């Protein structure tokens, strides 16, 4: 069977092809929106036209079978129009109000989870993990599933002081938004990588490998045509492994995950914030990582009990102070919490006023 003729550099299809008529007619002329339930909302245009949206949880890793099933529902209720959010939720776009309730009913009947709008937990941003990445030192999908099995009521019904954005990254490359999330998990190494000199000499460019180290821990070793690593300087980031695979950073028994908190992206009220270290290490405990899940639940509960309405996790912590955060959560403060990389000047306390 012959193949169709390939085209190059055509780019993606123009988005207009995929917009429902109600969006085309009111593009740039929306007036307001209202959240109708944790998983449904209506946008109202200046013309008075309405667009109903149903937001559905997704594991992001989808089979074509599931995509087709969602497409069938979109055909039944949305004239075939659907989209995905920047957090990988599925959104069904309904122009005819009469179809909203039947659509929600059928989704629920088929086992889909509806929610994620408003002051809640939305879909979790995460990376590939063991499913598909060579650099993963935990499984992102597994952690997300284990976390959300415990926290799903914050997606479907329960409210929090503000939205809480969760993320999981399976290594410090962070192909997700871990560095700016309310509560996030990032996988970390703790041991100096093991160098396979013979293969480093064969496969790697030595200057690039030396240059890849953020702490200048790597030096050329002319004798072996390989490199050496200064163990006192290495912070186990794994960037050398990325440019030179025979420098093996993986250590399944000593790799694990850290929890970071307090990041945010929006400029609402306070500036965007980096996530900061809350708990430096847990061992990988597949399939359900129970200690990690418990720790996240604890942080979330303390936030829910103590934050003011509309405060994000990071805003609450900054208001009460980090010393109070550690006290309220009962999290142990360790050497690892004190920055000795690039942010030390910004993060040490230069004040005689603080709490106990």
């Amino acid at each position, binding site marked *: 069977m012959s193949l169709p003729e390939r085209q190059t550099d055509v780019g993606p299809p123009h988005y207009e092809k995929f917009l429902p008529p109600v969006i085309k007619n009111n593009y740039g002329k929306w007036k307001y929106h209202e959240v109708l339930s944790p998983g449904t909302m209506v946008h109202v245009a200046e013309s008075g036209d309405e667009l109903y949206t149903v937001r559905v949880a997704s*594991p992001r890793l989808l089979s*074509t079978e599931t995509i087709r099933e969602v497409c069938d529902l979109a055909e039944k209720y949305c004239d075939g129009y659907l989209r995905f959010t920047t957090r990988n939720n599925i959104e069904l776009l309904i122009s005819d109000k009469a179809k909203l309730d039947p659509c929600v009913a059928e989704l629920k009947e088929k086992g889909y989870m509806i929610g994620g709008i408003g002051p809640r937990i939305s879909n979790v941003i995460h990376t590939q993990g063991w499913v598909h990445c060579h650099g993963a030192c935990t499984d992102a999908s597994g952690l997300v599933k284990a976390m959300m099995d415990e926290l*799903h009521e914050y997606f479907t019904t329960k409210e929090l002081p503000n939205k809480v954005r969760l993320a999981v990254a399976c290594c410090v490359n962070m192909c997700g938004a871990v560095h700016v999330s309310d509560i996030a998990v990032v996988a970390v190494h703790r041991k100096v990588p093991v160098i396979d000199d013979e293969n480093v000499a064969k496969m790697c460019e030595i200057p690039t490998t030396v240059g890849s180290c953020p702490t200048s821990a790597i030096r050329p070793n002319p004798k072996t045509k390989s490199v050496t690593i200064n163990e006192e300087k290495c912070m186990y980031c794994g960037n050398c492994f990325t440019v030179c695979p025979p420098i093996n950073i993986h250590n399944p028994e000593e790799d694990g995950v850290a929890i970071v908190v307090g990041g945010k992206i929006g400029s609402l009220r306070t500036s965007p914030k980096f996530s900061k270290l809350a708990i430096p290490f847990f061992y990988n405990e597949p*399939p359900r990582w129970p200690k990690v899940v418990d720790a996240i639940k604890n942080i979330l509960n303390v936030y829910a009990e103590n934050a003011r309405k509309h405060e994000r996790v990071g805003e609450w912590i900054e208001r009460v102070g980090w010393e109070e955060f550690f006290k309220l959560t009962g999290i142990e403060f360790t050497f690892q919490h004190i920055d000795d990389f690039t942010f030390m000047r910004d993060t040490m306390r230069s004040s005689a006023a603080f709490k106990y």
Partner: protein
Amino acid sequence: MAKYQTPMLDELEKGAWPSFVTEIKKAAKNSKMAEDELGQLEKSFQTKRGYWKHGGIVGVLGYGSGVIGRYSSLPEEFPGVAHFHTYRINQPSGFFYTSEALKEICDIWDKYGSGLTNLHGSTGDLVLLGTTTDALEPLFAEYSSRGWDLGGSGSAMRTPSCCIGQARCEWANINAMDICNHFTQHFQDELHRPAFPYKFKIKVSGCACDCVAAIARADLSIIGTWKGDIRIDQAEVKNYADNGMDIQKEIVGMCPTECMTYEGGELKINNEKCSRCMHCISKMTKALRPGEEKGASILVGSKAPIVVGSLISWVLVPFIKAEAPYEELTELTENIIEWWDDNAKPRERLGELIEVKGMRPLLEAIGVAPQPQQVKEPRKDPFFFWSESDFEK
């Protein structure tokens, strides 16, 4: 009967949240690749380590990006994933689809790949997970002939991404989807043929809520903003109060610039003092709307921790008009990229280069004046550079 016993993964089919394991099992009914993916993943869960080798160089003719080579390190044990490459399809702006288009993508993928996808990958692409080297050219012919091109990877322009913008959001100050589409088309060559020092990401958000995380995850962050007065509908303000909102506490009291008052049922805003953070507007969607003079703030430099720590973008141009055909915005973007491309070491992101060189060389290269909006505060130490041009003034 299933080819593999997967007790660890089976545990993750229990519970309320949708299960990725169920998805892999669905695909495994029709695909030996997905079946062996399941087997290898169970082994990873048992042994707490991955079994993927570093990506090899694979791709389609004439392209240097869009396909990421992936090989199992256990090809004899799991032959179905001996090759298991990623194929990145450049998503349409705003992640809008019709069922017809998505089903067509699925039909082709089932023919040539594992049947597993990510909707979507972290950068924004529609990611197809797992195919063989032989299948890449046929896949490209099938998809490209139907208008679906590859996204970026490696040291290239990465697939631009955006929020939903004016398609559905009343806060979108710029046409985020159109700007995203414009840059995607404008940089096709840079997207498909990696020739940069490292990756370069562009993200476009319609307002400071920043739903696409432009400020944290893009070398060039384009964020919609406005000038002029926030539009107030006092009748709707009253409705919010009547429906139980504590306007003094939740709106006025949480305004970071203290530019609002609420007296006698009337909400007043001193717009000169407003920093346009979006708190009040996002909480009172029916009563408050952004001002009418629209534009974008341009920030640069954000990235994840590798190599020298994570960065959140810095303000470069506080306000720029961003209307089609986006000539000024495009020229600015090209100049920023040119400066980076000329000066960066291999694997040095824009933000890291600015840290090394300072902001001044970039500002001079792109012809942007220093402005207080660019900094949180001026420098603290009395060491600073003077250049010849400073004396001529």
